[in-house]
């Protein structure tokens, strides 16, 4: 039995269909990358997986002992959180809350889980630091540690690198890859192509309907990859090639890194995905 099995999902808001015909599964140890154009319904699918909105039709089943409480979620970085007065340890331990049941306060077990995950994410020295004073990469590691407090088995990530600079992005993907190798299943929605799918073993591409689901190797040979990829390359100016190698080192140099608004995001994406198609 898979962790997650989705059969013929139709997703949308207020009766408007965003995407349909989505069928895929996530098994133990998988690293699934969900890609698609802006507005293709990637985040809608993510919300459906978390039970935040109901699919218009189709089924989402959880199996293999995964319950809703055992999903670790890493959201897009929200602007308001950037001035929230909270220490690293306060945020990380809040990930264990679902394990507390009806107990109002954290016990020794929860503190231990939080400590382990802070050490795992190299945050232990920062545990009393304020979240808003951390760098973007450190903030993402805090949110990752919090997600790991909720689960050791399945992580959902929604565009986790938005707003991070290039070097930090590569480090972050390296970290995810290590987690995956240690047995955590990963489902990630992402804007960037090369870097994001570099570590994945399964790909789901969605548009108005499902375009592709299967192994990465098959995907890279498929027509859908070629057209999707070429579409992005065509946006790019020459000489902005850049990519993360699987080991997390950096080759090439990207222009336009920071993204703040939709317009800049476009430019960021274009620069980011530019060039090198070596994977």
């Amino acid at each position: 039995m898979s962790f997650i099995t989705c059969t013929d999902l139709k997703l949308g808001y207020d009766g408007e269909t965003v995407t349909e015909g989505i069928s895929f599964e996530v098994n133990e140890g998988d690293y699934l990358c969900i890609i698609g154009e802006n507005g293709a319904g990637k985040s809608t699918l993510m919300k459906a997986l978390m039970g935040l909105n109901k699919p218009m039709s189709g089924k989402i089943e959880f199996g293999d002992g995964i319950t809703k409480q055992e999903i670790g979620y890493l959201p897009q970085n929200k602007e308001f959180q950037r001035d929230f007065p909270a220490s690293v340890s306060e945020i990380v331990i809040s990930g264990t809350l679902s394990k507390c049941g009806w107990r109002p306060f954290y016990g020794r077990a929860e503190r231990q889980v939080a400590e382990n995950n802070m050490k795992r994410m190299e945050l232990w020295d920062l545990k009393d630091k304020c979240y808003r004073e951390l760098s973007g990469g450190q903030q993402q590691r805090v949110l990752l540690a919090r997600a790991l407090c909720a689960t050791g088995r399945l992580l959902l990530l929604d565009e986790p690198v938005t707003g991070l600079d290039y070097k930090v992005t590569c480090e972050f993907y390296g970290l995810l890859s290590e987690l995956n190798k240690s047995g955590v299943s990963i489902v990630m929605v992402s804007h960037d192509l090369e870097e994001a799918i570099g570590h994945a073993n399964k790909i789901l591409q969605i548009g108005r309907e499902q375009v592709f689901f299967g192994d990465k190797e098959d995907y890279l040979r498929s027509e859908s990859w070629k057209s999707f990829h070429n579409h992005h390359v065509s946006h790019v100016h020459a000489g902005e090639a850049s990519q993360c190698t699987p080991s997390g080192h950096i080759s090439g140099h990207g222009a336009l890194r920071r993204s703040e608004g939709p317009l800049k995001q476009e430019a960021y994406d274009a620069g980011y995905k530019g060039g090198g198609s070596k994977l």
Partner: protein
Amino acid sequence: MSIFETFRMYFSYPFVRYAFVVAVVMSLSASLLGITLVLKRFSFIGDGLSHVAFGAMAVATVFGSINNNVIVLPLTILAAVILLKTGNNTKVKGDAAIAVFSVGALAVGYFIMNVFSVSSNVSGDVCSTLFGSTSLLTLNEGEVWFSVVLAVIVIALFVILYNRIFAVTFDEDFANATGINADRYNLIIAILIAVVIVMGMKMVGSLLISALVIFPALSAMRLFDDYRRVVICSAVIAVVCAVFGMLLSILLSTPVGATIVIADMAVFVAVVLIRSVFK
């Protein structure tokens, strides 16, 4: 007469002691909820609700019910729930809904008080409902107990739900994903804030009550970087300002509500100045 003797003389009157107790418990519970309101960008809900409470108070006065709170409390809680729901609805902008509610309630309240009032001093009634100036003279023991019980409930719920309120305030999506019903806690917070506002109306009046909600939280957030310290600091500032404001209003014969609010404001200005010097 020395200052000490003045205080002893005043505190020999039961209504002064009552007012003192109510001011402290009310400021304390307002400041605790204030942090959540400020961080969730809900500050205006508090403001809108206080106007609704004014309208409800006007209705209650005209109907001459024995205890105004029987009418005012349920109406304000109802308004809190409606405001929260419309705030979440993307079609009706939350701030517009609040403006409609607060201005409407003010107009209806003033209209009712003028047209149906049996009192000979309408403007005095309106003024004391808005600014709470003279109403501490009319506090009776029953109303003091009512306030104390409500304050104990608010504070106890805040302590018991502390970790969950933190999680929901910091990241609603993550809380939902891990099986914490964020809507339920938002509803609890809205109800609690309605309770605090009704409780504080007698003391500081409906126009000034939101100052007690917002100022201590804003001051504390500028002094401390982690959530627990911000909560404690906010509570301390609120209690100190309530005590100091009460004593000052006795010494100077100034209106109680306004004096407490000015004390809170003075602390806020001092904190802002200190931070700008030491940064």
